[in-house]
């Protein structure tokens, strides 16, 4: 599946519009997006094969040494001078606001022309084959246990094509990703929902993992029907990769977004160079830091992907920035300018955020917990970077008491607890860092 022919056909239009608007603004960029998503799903009684929520359009970004101006539109064909005039009129401000604009530093526009491609295996699968996989998995889930009231399998491949053009820069990127989900509604002592999600840029891997996930998801559902709630309290917890990733995301992903530094909305701004975590904690963010769902080649500001070390041996080292926040702070952008779509503003947002592996073994962690929980799978979280608190939700967990019986992993303990287990971390800062020195990381 090649780079979008539609965007390729608009390359010259982008350059011409940059030139037309360049008469009015020292910095002009255009981002063109063509994201094609497909949804294939089946449950016990219905199915669907259709385009998912993709996007196709352009966003123009301009700076005149003061505020940034953006205009989102569907098409950039036609008379560029006329279009430039339309854009200038659309982003005009009321005169009363003219005098209260920011004054950022210069915007970089280093020359570069490059086309980035990362192949997928999506073209090797027809709609028929993928729907067949979904139906087969739904049938298998349904056959496994009569208490499966409904089973759902969803495959969602999407292919991204983006073009970025400035006076000195022409970049294109083309890559794909896919998500796969198994969900069962299961009746027993009570109605429960159990799910399993896989992601990759190889559908072959996702299909294989979903097939292997049939028994575990039924097993989880069965256990959840007789899980009991956690008694509210303060406990030691061990978190699986999902919850650990969520903590990284909420605490030192959102917590170090540098557009929040500009607004004085992040305590992290005042903690650079200080201990904010256990000395064994090393945390990264970056589209180039690892290969995962947020691995792109350049961000929506045309900045190449980075590997940013946020925390090094427990010390806060760096934040994450988009073009606008970096220009205001006088720092180099870190490749974290991200838009929901071409219709939305770019913000400094996380990409792949993760901890480096540690040296502790899971069984040692379990042995160290006298009375606590091992928590699995999140579905929700919320950050509060100013006040340095986070809320994380775990869907289920295992509880254990060392004197009684250790935590068991993987799940299977009849004392499975039902969620959502709320984890609340309050006030973890350099002055309370000793609380986090007990954090351990799995290999």
């Amino acid at each position: 599946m090649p780079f979008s022919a539609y965007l390729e056909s608009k390359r010259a239009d982008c350059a011409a519009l940059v030139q037309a608007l360049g008469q009015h603004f020292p910095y002009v960029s255009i981002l063109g997006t063509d994201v094609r998503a497909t949804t294939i799903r089946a449950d016990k009684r219905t199915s669907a094969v259709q385009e998912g929520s993709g996007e196709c359009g352009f966003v123009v970004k301009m700076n005149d040494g003061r505020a940034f101006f953006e205009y989102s539109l569907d098409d950039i064909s036609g008379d560029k001078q006329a279009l430039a005039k339309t854009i200038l009129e659309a982003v005009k401000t009321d005169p009363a606001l003219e005098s209260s604009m920011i004054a950022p530093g210069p915007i970089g526009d280093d020359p570069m022309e490059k086309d980035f491609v990362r192949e997928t295996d999506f073209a090797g699968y027809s709609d028929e084959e993928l729907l067949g996989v979904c139906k087969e998995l739904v049938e298998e889930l349904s056959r496994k246990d009569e208490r499966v009231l409904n089973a759902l399998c969803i495959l969602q491949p999407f292919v991204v094509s983006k073009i970025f053009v400035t006076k000195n820069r022409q970049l294109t990127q083309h890559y794909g990703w896919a998500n796969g989900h198994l969900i069962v509604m299961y009746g027993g002592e009570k109605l429960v929902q159990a799910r399993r999600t896989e992601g990759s840029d190889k559908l072959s891997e996702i299909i294989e993992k979903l097939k292997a996930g049939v028994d575990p998801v039924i097993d989880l559902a069965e256990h959840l029907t007789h899980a009991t709630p956690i008694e509210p309290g303060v406990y030691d917890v061990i978190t699986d990769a999902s919850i650990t990733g969520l903590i990284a995301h909420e605490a030192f992903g959102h917590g170090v977004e540098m557009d929040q530094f500009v607004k004085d909305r992040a305590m992290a701004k005042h903690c650079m160079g200080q201990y904010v975590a256990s000395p064994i904690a090393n945390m990264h963010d970056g589209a180039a830091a690892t290969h995962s769902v947020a691995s792109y080649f350049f961000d929506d500001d045309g900045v190449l992907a980075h590997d940013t070390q946020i925390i090094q041996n427990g010390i806060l080292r760096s934040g994450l920035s988009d073009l606008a926040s970096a220009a205001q702070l006088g720092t180099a952008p870190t490749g974290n300018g991200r838009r929901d779509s071409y219709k939305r503003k770019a913000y400094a947002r996380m990409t792949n955020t993760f901890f480096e592996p540690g040296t502790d073994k899971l069984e040692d962690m379990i042995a160290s917990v006298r009375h606590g929980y091992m928590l699995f799978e999140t579905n929700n979280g919320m950050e509060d970077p100013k006040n340095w608190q986070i809320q994380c939700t775990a869907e289920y967990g295992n509880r254990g008491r060392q004197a009684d019986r250790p935590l068991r992993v993987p799940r299977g303990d009849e004392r499975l607890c039902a969620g959502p287990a709320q984890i609340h971390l309050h006030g973890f800062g350099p002055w309370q860092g000793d609380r986090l020195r007990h954090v351990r990381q799995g290999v």
Partner: protein
Amino acid sequence: MMNIQTLLENNREISDWRLSQEATQSYELFFVHRQLETVRATDTLDTRVTVYVDHDGARGDSSFSVSPAMAERDVEEKIVSAVRRARLVSNPPYTLPESGALEAQLPTNMKDMDMKTLGRQIAEAVFAADTEEGASINACEIFLYRDTARVLNSRGIDKSQVTHRVMIEAIPTFTDDKQSVELYEDYRFTVFEPEKITAEIARKMAEVRDRVRAVKPKTPLKTRVLLRPHEISELIDTLAWSLNYATVYSHANPFKIGDDLQKDGNGDKMTLTMKAVVEGSEQSAFFDGDGTALKNTCLVDGGVVKNYYGASRFGQYLKVEQPSGDMNCASLLPGTLAQKDMKNAPCLECASLSGLQVDLYNDYIGGEIRLAYYFDGEKTYPVTGITMSGKLSDALRGMRLSSETTVQGAYEGPALMMIPEINVL
């Protein structure tokens, strides 16, 4: 638009089709403190086409998007591809809504206002609340939208609706010599009343000042909790979701018609109605994505589930004679207790949560509390750094609803909900 319609009608394999469009014009202002950082404007048109193909006693469907820049040849290819995909799908048959024409405008006073002037006036109304020493608005984002939604189908539906709406996201902040704290404000309206904006932001400014002096109360404690409209709305949304035709058809509903959600309860009985139009709500609509005319539907009456609601297709699957259409606005009847009477015994009034967590399957309600007001029986003081956690069934059984009502987002109903003894850590 007419070209797509013609292309669809020319394809003999198509049994039915639906064409949905959403045209959006926006003007957006982004402030860092009081300085303007970004000015945005958008002018976009989303077109979504669904083709329906009846085959082998079943109905298949497939949808795709059309960009305004797309050539007719490309649209034709997409139609052919969608027909092929629809033939892969064998769903139980259903019909599309028929014969209806409408051109509607939701009530607003912003229809003829210039967006740039209005944006400036809204900004002035927001910053007019920033008057106190130590207080500031560290960020403010103002979004002005004019949305035009249109639905056509092969059965004679042609309906459109224009909505003017504004969303303000503001970050009231208070700083003293020891700390700096903030709260999050999300304020939406369809009628521009600058004094209301200033009053709403001022209310939040007062609360953020309270957050500076908020303390963690002695915990654990068990107390009555008062929820405000934002959180009541989240709870009601979750209950309503569980009673949607699609949820019921997919067996994801923990409640069914006839269930008493407040069995053996001693609180106010809940009467919940899904509504097409709630005055002042940007979620109001006259028709849904299929073009179905929306019909107000009482879901819960006196605590007992009476009806489901939702899109025509799943309504037909459930053998509902006249499906209600899928709607967003929820209306809860008020109770008999005045707000002041709710607050005259020990209670915790939640002013700001990280997000109310409601889990129907695990009978849970809870969340992290960023700011609340705790009345200990003698005095009221602001508290922070706590978490509440309880059983949803207990909350529903014993809940009391205020006699005073309000509109917030898609919610219309009591301004306060009191839930009985709940654990706070």
